[in-house]
């Protein structure tokens, strides 16, 4: 009886396939709507629905809590897959996975968060993040707003400059000061499900150059709830031990996927030219190999960072070390710059057909999407932070033998 039930269950049959196979179907759906999402600056509903249908929102939740326990490398691969179809969709999936990583790393000791993780996997909830704030900007490790806790209930009001896909998320993980009298950097993170205890008032609209589908509007977020929704660990530890690395790795995976698709289009362009004129090397061919080298650098850096994170994962001292932070910061800056270079070269190769929208070689959207990379947490801010770290940290030259 049970066996028959399982076989006829469409969800079970879909889970029997690898996450990669399921993501391939999602990517096809995302690719079909990417132009409309970009032009209209709307949330990629089709992608979100497909991610739910293919059960891809809970893949990184631990197995014992109903997920598939996928690690950083596997999740980053899924992000790369999706990014080749739609940059906004991939960034949304990446940001969701950053929140899942915080939960899976720092929520397993708390019963409330364990139950919530079961819900994320079971109901395929989409998670968003509210860290930036009016008066603070993008400085993650500072908050003005504070949670007020009384009788095991919390209340919070946060004027968030940006909550990416906030209006479409099933829950928001928000940072705030521990208490009204706490220091700006003495922060907690709290899980705020989209239910009757929460209100979102849109304060600004995301009308941007690229990444238009992330719908990163500004909101006034007001919430109350069970104090147990607050993570047991301080946000400083969550930021250092999971969020820093997972953000930079999944973002870099997004930019790598966007750059890779621009490269593929440029390659198709060169190949078409070569077919038309056999025995003549097309002028763009040289540039293509230049772009391939840069793409390879991006991939190498990303793989190295994932390995570095996996090695550090079980060692809190290593994870919170200055050297680790400096290395992961470097990934963000380097991959964001490199992605823009690859897409720019792809544009040079594809010429006017790449510049024009709606051709098989169009890379305008790629160029606009990837421009966000240098400004989402400004590279200058990150370089400045790293330069402080480098006052004491030495460069690790070992190749890992």
């Amino acid at each position: 009886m049970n066996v028959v039930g399982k076989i006829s269950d469409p969800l079970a049959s879909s889970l029997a396939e690898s996450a990669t196979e399921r993501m391939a179907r999602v990517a096809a759906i995302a690719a079909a709507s990417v132009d409309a999402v970009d032009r209209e600056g709307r949330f990629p509903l089709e992608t979100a629905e497909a991610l739910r249908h293919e059960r891809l929102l809970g893949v990184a939740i631990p197995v014992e809590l109903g997920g598939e326990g996928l690690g950083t490398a596997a999740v980053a691969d899924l992000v790369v897959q999706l990014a080749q179809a739609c940059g906004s969709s991939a960034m949304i999936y990446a940001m969701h996975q950053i929140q899942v990583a915080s939960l899976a790393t720092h929520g397993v000791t708390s019963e409330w968060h364990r139950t919530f993780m079961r819900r994320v996997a079971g109901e395929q909830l989409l998670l968003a993040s509210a860290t930036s704030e009016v008066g603070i900007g993008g400085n993650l490790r500072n908050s003005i707003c504070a949670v007020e806790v009384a009788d095991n209930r919390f209340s919070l009001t946060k004027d968030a400059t940006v909550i990416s896909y906030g209006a479409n998320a099933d829950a928001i993980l928000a940072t705030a000061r521990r208490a009204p009298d706490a220091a700006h950097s003495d922060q907690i993170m709290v899980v705020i499900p989209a239910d009757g205890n929460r209100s979102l008032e849109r304060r600004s609209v995301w009308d941007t150059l690229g990444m238009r589908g992330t719908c990163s509007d500004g909101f006034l977020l007001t919430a109350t709830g069970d104090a147990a929704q607050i993570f047991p660990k301080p946000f400083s530890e969550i930021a250092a031990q999971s969020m820093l690395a997972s953000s930079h790795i999944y973002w870099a995976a997004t930019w790598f996927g966007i750059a890779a698709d621009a490269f593929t289009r440029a390659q198709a362009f060169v190949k078409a030219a070569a077919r038309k004129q056999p025995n003549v090397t097309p002028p763009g061919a040289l540039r293509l190999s230049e772009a391939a080298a840069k793409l390879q650098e991006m991939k190498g850096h990303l793989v190295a960072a994932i390995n570095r994170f996996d090695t550090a994962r079980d060692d809190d001292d290593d994870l919170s070390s200055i050297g680790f932070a400096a290395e992961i910061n470097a990934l963000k800056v380097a991959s964001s710059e490199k992605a823009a270079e690859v897409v720019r070269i792809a544009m040079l190769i594809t010429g006017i057909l790449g510049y024009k929208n709606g051709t098989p070689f169009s890379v305008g959207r790629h160029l606009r999407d990837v421009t966000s990379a240098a400004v989402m947490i400004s590279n200058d801010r990150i370089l400045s932070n790293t330069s402080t770290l480098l006052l004491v940290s030495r460069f690790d030259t070992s190749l890992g033998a």
Partner: protein
Amino acid sequence: MIDRIRALLTGNPMIPIDFETISDNANLYDAGLTSFASVQLMLAIEEEFDIEFPEEKLTRRTFSSIANIAAAVSELTAESV
């Protein structure tokens, strides 16, 4: 050692903690020490004791309390004597 560290850090404008009153074992990160302020703290200690922290000591744990800093400094100065 502890008093010397306390005196050194008291009044450092880059580190927003009252080092005169905080206890030896109180968590400095909980008291508002950011990772960037902790670098200023490390530099001040290195200068004062003429030492250089090896990479494996550059962790959150080493700088999480005055007592931990003192322990690390003792270890490094003992080694260099």
